[in-house]
């Protein structure tokens, strides 16, 4: 990966709907070159997915998210990886991180109701053999996600014409 690739990634990370021709113009590149590079970045899974950040709450869709601290006993040979995999295979699990500090694995779960999430933790997560304990924290309000302030659409307050 070189400087051009990095610049393409930066642009797409911020706005995945940019067209090849726009990227080409902004980076002073040939459009075909941009297309080829993006394809390669996709194949190498440096670009993992193109997605949209949706404010579901505003869309009236009630979802419940919870951040679960999980304490586990690491396994000889694979450490935390196999345990993490058992957890991240569940589709309800949106994010899994290995953490430093007082617990080991951080799991973000989304469900329709609080009960559904709690039930999932009790039956699926807490019952994994290596899991020593869990602590569930429900998300009450999302202010900022993926670097974007959700509620805050700052209008262009500038004068329309100025010298």
């Amino acid at each position, binding site marked *: 990966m070189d400087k051009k690739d990095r610049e393409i990634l930066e*642009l797409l990370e911020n*706005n995945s709907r*940019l067209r090849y021709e*726009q990227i080409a*113009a*902004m*980076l*002073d590149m040939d459009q075909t070159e941009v297309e080829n590079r993006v394809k390669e970045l996709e194949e190498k899974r440096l670009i993992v997915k193109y997605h949209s950040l949706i404010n579901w709450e505003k869309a009236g869709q009630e979802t419940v998210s919870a951040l679960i601290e999980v304490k586990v006993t690491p396994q000889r040979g694979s450490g935390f990886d196999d345990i993490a995999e058992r957890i991240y295979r569940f589709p309800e699990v949106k994010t899994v991180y290995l953490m430093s500090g007082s617990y080991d694995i951080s799991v973000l779960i989304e469900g329709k109701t609080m009960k559904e999430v709690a039930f999932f933790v009790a039956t699926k997560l807490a019952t994994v053999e290596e899991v020593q304990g869990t602590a569930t924290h429900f998300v009450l309000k999302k202010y900022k996600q993926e670097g974007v302030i959700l509620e805050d659409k*700052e209008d*262009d307050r*500038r*004068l*329309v*014409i*100025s*010298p």
Partner: protein
Amino acid sequence: MINWTDKLSPQVKSIPPSGIRRFFDLVSEMKGVISLGVGEPDFVTPWHVREACIYSLEKGYTMYTSNWGLLELREEIARHLYNNYKVAYEPRNEVLVTVGVSEGMDLALRALLAPGDEVLVPEPCYVSYAPCTSMAGGTPVPILTSAENDFRVTAAEIKEKITPKTKVIILSYPNNPTGATISREELMEIAKVVKKHDLVVISDEIYDKLTYEGEHTCFASLPAMKNRTILLNGFSKAYAMTGWRLGYACGHPEVIAHMTKIHQYTMLCAPVTAQMAALEALQNGTDEMLKMVAEYDRRRKLVLKGFSEIGLSCFEPKGAFYAFPSIKNTGLSSEEFAERLLMEAKVATVPGSVFGVNGQGHIRCSYAASVENLTEAIDRMDKFLKKLSFCGEEACG
């Protein structure tokens, strides 16, 4: 009844209002307009700067500062100029914090000019230079730089306009409205003329950080030029701080002392809140500033490519955030073109003629706008140009 016409200063009455005003009034009444007419960043001031200002208010920084500005800020400005351009100013008597470059320009001209003194003003340029010169009692002498030379003023063009009354020349690169920059070599040639004719240079370098190709040369950093130069700069463009109104002037202690005298009686000092914010911008703002500059550069390329694809000829601007395309082949004047573009295609630009007679035949397009808006604006301009050329051939109205 008081008759104001009799009361008002004839000198101020003789100064025409800015040509931008009429356009502003036109645009304000319209909806769905994409504006490329804005002379300021489309970023808000970085949060760490705003946060530092809020903190300063909480701590009670609400008093006057020294007329010169906070010493800590002046020290930071001097350090910054030294690090960037290796030009060393003494913070105690060679740096004055002003209310934007606008005030700095006014102070410099008023501190220098006696009635009849001539000020060389390369045009196209920012709208305030000539009026401020007149209001300070001087006579602005425009130098019409040529489009063929990408509107960079040359030593020869300057020489041609020098008379025994010439005292000052104003330089402003990177340039508003053209986006032109100027090389160190070209400035060296100008410096020779300046020295030979014993001129003072007022160098407005507010867009210095927004230089996309090559390096910006600070005029005061040229050999023997520091003592002949009043360097004006500020925080508006690089740090997206236009509304804070904060700038600075640097120069020889004698001229800075005179400028400070006017400043102390008219302004007293620049607002302390803005000074506290500026301190934070200089100390911790470089990363975000560079990000904004990189972003402008990408948009610059997008706009240039777009213009070339729709057949709008435009020299490559290498600084500021303006493109200054020529619209001469449409047969319309700048004003006509800009007005019809606004009314028929809903894209706001500024007629080049506002910035000097040789800006005629050009429009100023600011690319301090989002990629979506720039793309849409170029699209609209494309349709507008096609309609124009079709109508030209068919002679329709």
